[in-house]
């Protein structure tokens, strides 16, 4: 390789500088939030003036917050389950299927990802109102399932496309029925992808505010909606504490994804 010219050095320096700045920008907010969650005083300062866990303790005493965490956990479990139950077979048809109009089916299945969360939220709100349902967390589960379905389908499709269909054929040739083949040959190979898809959907549903603001129950609000109103009116370190917990949760999900399908997969 040739020696670097002056302009090469300049470009390289600029690139490394920009990349470093971008990486700092990516991680700094989370680190700041974690740091200020340990603030002992009643207002935010950075670096924190000391170390205390009192804001974490205060969360436990805040009934409204603990209730909303529970609501969000329940909603996310439902959304992840619905996503898997609907999404995995759909991904099957989208990858293995041989029927006319397959491309349109795929486009339709992935179409929710073209919709901003807000539009899905408002549409669900109006749809529910039209049929005289009030905004409720059941409606939120339905709306979030629509919003998250493409994640499950894409992750499962990517894994399915990498499987060897001959294994299924071999199983069929050896006399196994369709369901048996699916349960004993295909599913074990899909396992990691399903875990990743479930974890990813769970965290998306747990974090979602754009859909939830429109369709969630007025009583029994999910955590992101509760937080949204809190952030608008207040800036106590308690918000930082709950945010730090959310960041920890996201790391857990990342670990699951990294161990199962690999982090690089998420980009595709």
């Amino acid at each position, binding site marked *: 390789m040739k020696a670097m010219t002056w302009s090469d050095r300049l470009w390289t320096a600029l690139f490394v500088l920009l990349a470093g700045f971008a990486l700092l920008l*990516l991680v700094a907010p989370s680190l700041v939030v974690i740091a200020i969650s340990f603030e002992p005083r009643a207002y935010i300062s950075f670096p924190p003036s000391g170390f205390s866990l009192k804001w974490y303790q205060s969360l436990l005493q805040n009934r409204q917050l603990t209730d909303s965490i529970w609501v969000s956990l329940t909603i996310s479990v439902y959304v992840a389950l619905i996503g898997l139950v609907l*999404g995995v077979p759909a991904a099957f*048809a989208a990858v293995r299927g041989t029927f006319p109009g397959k491309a349109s089916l795929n486009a339709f299945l992935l179409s929710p990802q073209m919709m901003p969360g807000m539009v*899905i939220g408002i549409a669900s709100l109006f749809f529910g109102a039209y049929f005289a349902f009030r905004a409720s967390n059941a409606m939120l589960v339905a709306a979030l399932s629509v919003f998250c379905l493409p994640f499950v389908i894409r992750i499962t499709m990517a894994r399915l496309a990498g499987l060897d269909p001959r294994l299924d054929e071999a199983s069929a040739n050896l006399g196994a029925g369709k369901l048996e083949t699916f349960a004993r040959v295909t599913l074990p190979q899909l396992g990691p992808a399903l875990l990743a898809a479930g974890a990813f959907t769970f965290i998306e549903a747990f974090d979602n505010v754009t859909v939830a603001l429109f369709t969630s129950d007025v009583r029994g609000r999910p955590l992101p909606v509760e937080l949204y109103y809190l952030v608008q009116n207040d800036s106590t370190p308690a918000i930082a504490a709950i945010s730090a917990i959310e960041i920890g949760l996201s790391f857990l999900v990342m670990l699951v994804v990294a161990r199962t399908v690999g982090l690089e997969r998420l980009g595709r």
Partner: protein
Amino acid sequence: MTAAAISPGRRPGRLVRRMLHGGGFWPALPAVLFLIVFLVLPMLTLLAFGFVTIDRGRIVGDSFTLQPLWAALNDTLVWRLTWRSFYVAVISTVMTLLLAYPVAYLYSQTKGIWRTLMLVAVISPLLTSALVRAYAWLVILGGRRGIVNHTLIQLGVIDEPLRILNTDYAVIIGMTQIHLPFMILPLLAVLAERDRRLEEASFNLGASRAETFFKVVVPMSVPAIFAGLALVFAISYTNFIVPQLLGGGNYATLAVQVYEQTVVVLDWTRGAVLAAILLSSSFAFVFLIVWVGSRINRWSEARA
């Protein structure tokens, strides 16, 4: 198309065979039905609500009207808000590209632990709620106590706190950071797996690194660049959380206005009309970006 697969009366023999072969449409049926009920019908309701009179969630019979749409299109406020949504989205999208490309390129040039760490840095914000990150920016950019102002005052760079929060700057900074992973990931996938023989050939022919980068690497990633631009533009243009939290109470974009009309003011007709305008204009811009991208890609392939 799919009708043949789902109506058993038509070609029973083929349907049964398909089901046995596992290549059929039917596994997707539950998802398709679910999307029809919970996406298509709600979207139709949303559109319909823009063109009728609504009273307590009920359509007043036979009241089709174009008046709300006409009123919105003649409202200079709507145009001003659309313009702000547009320029804020454009500036922050361009900034994400400028920051994302070096990260994706550097990622493709590194190995081992650094590579993993970079990936973690890119993905972890993606899994952290946008709300949490908007809150972080509130703390960082906030008034006198905000980290930026506090540090600058301590260092003696400024005497008075800078007014960043509640301006376009805060909104653009917040959006850029929050949407950065969406730009990095498509670039990263393409750059990490690219065929490096072309670059070697370019070096061997005497081109400098910079020349090789701009004439070989960048053209190769044009589809990924435009995929990222389209995605980030769409999510920036329709984001209402960041403008609301970092822009402050008096700051509005088209998306913020949609939120306020439907949730605060409860004027659902206007909310529906504005949501339809937001969605259709977003689609129009995205198609434009994709179209320009495919033109540039064809042009650069033709040159190669």
